[in-house]
């Protein structure tokens, strides 16, 4: 098997995650889909690392994880406070960005 398949898998997972972001309304699920996309990228990085024979790709993936962790912390905090004020976790409820 050619390791390129990992890349295909990564692309597939990324696309699924992106589609999920677009079709789900629950902010938490949307957020999970974002995580899925990040993970798909990480898989690609790791695969690239293997392809090129150096560890830079893994380092980037590592940083991605850290950033993702930070993002989750803040994001979930936002969701919780949104839920407190609006009693809803739907992203469509926050549709104030229009005239």
């Amino acid at each position: 098997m050619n390791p390129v398949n990992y890349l295909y898998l990564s692309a597939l997972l990324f696309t699924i995650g992106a589609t999920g972001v677009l079709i789900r309304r629950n902010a938490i699920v949307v957020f999970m889909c974002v995580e899925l996309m990040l993970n798909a990228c990480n898989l690609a990085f790791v695969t690239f690392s293997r392809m090129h024979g150096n560890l830079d790709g893994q380092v980037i993936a590592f940083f991605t994880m850290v950033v993702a962790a930070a993002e989750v912390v803040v994001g979930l905090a936002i969701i919780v406070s949104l839920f407190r004020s609006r009693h809803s976790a739907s992203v469509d409820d926050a549709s104030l960005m229009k005239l």
Partner: protein
Amino acid sequence: MENLIALLVAAPLLGAVVLLCGGRRLDAVGHWIGTLLSSASFVIGVVLFTDLLGKNAEHRTLMQHLWTWVPVEGFQADVTFRLDQLSMTFVLLITGVGSLIHLYSVGYMEHDERRRRFFGYLNLFLAAMLILVLADNYLLLYVGWEGVGLASYLLIGFWQHKPSAATAAKKAFLVNRVGDMGLSIAIMLMFTTFGTFAFGPVLSHVGDASEGKLTGIALMLLLAACGKSAQVPLQSWLGDAMEGPTPVSALIHAATMVTAGVYLIVRSGAIFNAAPDAQLVVTVVGAVTLLFGAIVGCAKDDIKKALAGSTMSQIGYMVLAAGLGPIGYVFAIMHLVTHGFFKAGLFLGAGSVMHGMNDEVDMRKYGGLRKYMPVTFITFGLGYLAIIGFPGLSGFFSKDKIIEAAFAKGGTEGWILGGAALLGAAITAFYMTRVMLMTFFGEKRWQPDENGHEPHPHESPRTMTIPMIVLAFGSVFAGGIFGIGDRFLHWLEPVTGHEEGNSPVSALTVTLATMVVLVIGVAIAWAQYGRRPVPAVAPRGSLLTRAARRDLLQDDFNHVVLVRGGEHLTRSLVYVDHTLVDGVVNGTAASMGGLSGRLRKLQNGYARSYAVSMFGGAAILVAATLLMRAV
């Protein structure tokens, strides 16, 4: 001596400034300041005149350069005054008659609360008129030209609370503007042809220019003259201008300003001499106007309007003479001066009558006034005799010469022009006799007005009668002084040039013919207005009479074509501006608004929708990248 020239203008200008800016505290003495300053100008004029008389004929031109006015590359306009015999004649006429009329106005305007302002305007007029005749180039002349127009506008509309006066003032200015347009185009043409518009260089280089251009310049100058001198087709304003106070009518619309056109033509004689076609047009305009004015004068019952028609007609004589070229220039000016005397006298007489008749102007409500106003009657009568050309009085000398010169033009034109001039003389005799008879003879026809005040005709105060008397002297003797021994001819000849025409008819014949038509005119008038009583209400009259009462329908034509047409034009243009020019822009704006209204729907506020666009954009970017790599 040259330095005095500027003072001629400065004195009345100072008066205008002082009187107009001085405010109410000058109300008590304003009229005397105005009269004093205009008389000062006259005195300076006399001093300069004696100086000129003391010189040889060739050295009678004084120049005073004051300052460079408009210096632009290739375009040089100076404020330079030129005093020669022609200007001198005008200066004396303007300041002399002007001062007399100032004096007259002191009495005439006594009860007007805005008398100070009136004198300010009169002084302004004098200054502008003096600039006009003293200017050494056409552009400076233009300043005076429009300046007198302004003064005329202000004075016609002096009683602004009367809408008719305000309208008449505006009309006068506008019609004059059309003429002014001619003058400015003439100046532009001169500039392109000669590179300058100073009298000296232009008039001395006429020979080098093509006849076509000269004809153009001459016709444009004629247009200007028509506007200012109320010649056909720009004559319509003069009748309305009688809305102004009578001294104004006497000074501006009889003696001085309206003759500026004649001055312009005579001054530009060299150009006209080189453009025979234009000269022919000038004579035609003069002949038509002299008949036109005379006919209108016959039909008017308003004494001032009848006199206005007469003015038009007399200026027609002058223009006709000026159009005849060197054989006529001197006589045009001579008639101008004598006309200045007798017509001013006639107007002042009319003013005096109105003064005594509660400002009534309708001659059908006069009658038999000779008993009530003897001085007015005598002075008016002398003016009357002068204008109809009674032998020995001034009009006889000047008008006779013009008729003679018209015949001397030669050929068919000569006969036609001469015939017209003769016919004009007959009509003049008719309408002036009519005025005389209706006003001073017959039975009294006045009635109490609607308030029950019956007019009490009375002689006017001394300030008014003295100028009338002086002018009557002028009317009687000026012609003789000028004409006998050709004094006036010799005086003006160096400036205007002179040729003796070879008339197909002898001078004596012309004089006799003039006498005959004169008698016929007077006789008809006597038959119509002297022998039987004048009806107090105007009869319907013939078609011609009715047309003449309406200024031969020329005003109706103007009204229908220019006023109505103009109103329609502007109204439709306003509509076009609003709907079309602005509409295109607003339409663009509206369609952009519609488009963005559609686009706005994309902004539904849902983050997910935005995410789709973002994602789609990302997909397109990836596709573009791949495509670029593939290419």
